[in-house]
């Protein structure tokens, strides 16, 4: 297991964020972390990285205690926060400064990623736009080749072609020994990218399940007018919704629909996914 959280409690002064939280994430997956505003997505990521310490419970990440922030642990972790800071240097110079800290840093990969994103290695980062700086940091994070890559709202500030490039890049670097966690509000940015979903709501993990498992158990389709659904919404094409897949139908995962279904019927969803994948 890459990450194991056991009976975790965390609160900010007077606001309780997590109480008795359990979560297990494995290598070889690209996880999408979803939740409403203030549900605790960023807090969860910071707890994994050792930027916040739990009040009670255990966190084990790659065999390390994140709060100890040991160099061996940190060299296997790259965190891209929502609000980024980059020094006033050229990207090429900054990459050279970071290289000694990440044993598997790959300069050639960095150049390829930067080219893909159309960001120059020789431009001073202070002169880049917010979106360009975000792209530069994503490239750097990928080139560091860490076992755990954590991204908080990575697509914020990216233009439409860049979001597409982002999906391609992430898909290309996802390997068996790597775990990538992406937290976002913009679920459509994760289309065809993630292979597992974690939904955080009301201090707990509502769902932790692979996308294959979702489409095996649920079907996303146009509904008849009187057909009951876990969640449905009107669209120009008719009534679009998610229902229990009783006949083994094939369908494409609609993450937005699934997310809304989880929020509306958390207990039903928990019952559908049983004990093997849904955690408390």
């Amino acid at each position: 297991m890459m990450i194991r959280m056991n009976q975790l409690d965390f609160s900010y002064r007077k606001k309780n964020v997590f109480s008795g939280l359990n979560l297990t994430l494995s290598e070889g997956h690209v996880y999408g972390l979803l939740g409403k505003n203030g549900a605790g997505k960023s807090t969860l990521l910071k707890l994994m990285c050792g930027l916040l310490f739990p009040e009670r419970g255990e966190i084990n990440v790659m065999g390390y205690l994140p709060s100890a922030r040991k160099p061996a642990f940190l060299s296997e972790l790259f965190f891209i926060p929502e609000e980024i800071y980059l020094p006033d240097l050229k990207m090429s110079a900054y990459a050279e400064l970071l290289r000694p800290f990440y044993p598997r840093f790959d300069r050639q990969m960095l150049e390829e990623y930067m080219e893909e994103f159309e960001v120059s290695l020789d431009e001073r980062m202070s002169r880049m736009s917010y979106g360009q700086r975000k792209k530069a940091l994503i490239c750097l994070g990928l080139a560091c080749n860490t076992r755990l890559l954590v991204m908080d709202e990575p697509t914020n500030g990216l233009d439409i072609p860049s979001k597409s490039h982002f999906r391609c890049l992430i898909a290309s670097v996802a390997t068996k020994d790597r775990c990538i966690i992406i937290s976002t509000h913009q679920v459509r940015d994760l289309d065809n990218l993630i292979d597992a979903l974690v939904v955080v709501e009301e201090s707990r993990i509502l769902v932790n399940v692979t996308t294959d498992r979702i489409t095996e158990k649920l079907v996303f389709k146009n509904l008849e007018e009187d057909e009951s659904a876990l969640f449905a919404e009107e669209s120009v094409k008719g009534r679009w919704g998610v229902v229990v897949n009783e006949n083994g139908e094939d369908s494409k995962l609609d993450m937005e629909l699934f997310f809304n279904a989880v929020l509306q019927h958390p207990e039903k969803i928990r019952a559908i996914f049983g004990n093997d994948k849904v955690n408390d």
Partner: protein
Amino acid sequence: MINCVMMKEIFDICRFKALAWKYYRENMKTILIFLGVMVVVTFMVVCKFNPFRMEYTSLYTGSNYLDRYYGMFAKIFWGLLGFFLLFAASYSFADFMSGKKSFGALLLPASSFEKLLLAILNSTVVVFLLHVAVFYSVAHVACSYKYTGFKEADKIAVAESWSGFSYPVLTSGAEIVHPKVGNVFSVVDRFSESSAYTREVEDGTGVRKERTVYFTPFVVWNLLIMYWLYFVFVFMWGSITFRKRSALLTILVHGLFFLFLGWLVYRVGTVFWKIPREEAMLYGLYFYNTGELVPLSASWLLLLYIVPLTYVGIIWKKLKNKQV
């Protein structure tokens, strides 16, 4: 083998070199601005308090000049060092306290010890070496420029510079003397020599005798280093404790603390010890059973080092437990 691995988790020389290089490269602009401020402030202060200003020259004549301007430069040097150390130490953990920068600072793969060590080296050794270089260069340039010596007030004129400072102008017949900065570290020897004093104390048999004590250069050096470290670590503590206005809040907190401590010592000393307050003072302990001219014992200095070292421990703990 395990110990070696554990040691490398705490300190690795290659990683530390990479950390230091990254720090200096990223903060080069800030460092150069700080250096510029050091040069300008030192130049202005050296000009402002140059020993050949009208008001000073009227106070002393002849050979006293040398002592006076030596003492002046030494005071400027140590005063400015404190001023620059205050700023450097107060910003030593700024990256860890700033919202956006703190992610990178905390998650950079180096140990807390290495990050602390770099901050300490920057706030002590690096600032000190920079200050020595800047002070001697600037003071030398300033002194060799236009300062003139004179023995009689009527032979000099005073002009106003563009910065508003007044400076003496050579008049016909006056002797040109360029002040020399001298060795500002000899303040230790001078302090040691001037620290000797005599007082009458009662020995164990009830006989009152005169005793003379003085600080050895070793004691003065230790006091200086200890005070220097304490000063730096106090402001480093402020830097990792307060997000904003750390220097101001550090001074306020420590001012209140020392007021309380002073009040407590006074109360405890007078109420519980039942001995004259004069005798209760720390140095009083070293007057008994000594010869006529006795260097003050240095053994207690080791104990006093506990104070700055305690601060280092607290700073390290705060850095290890720092959250965003």
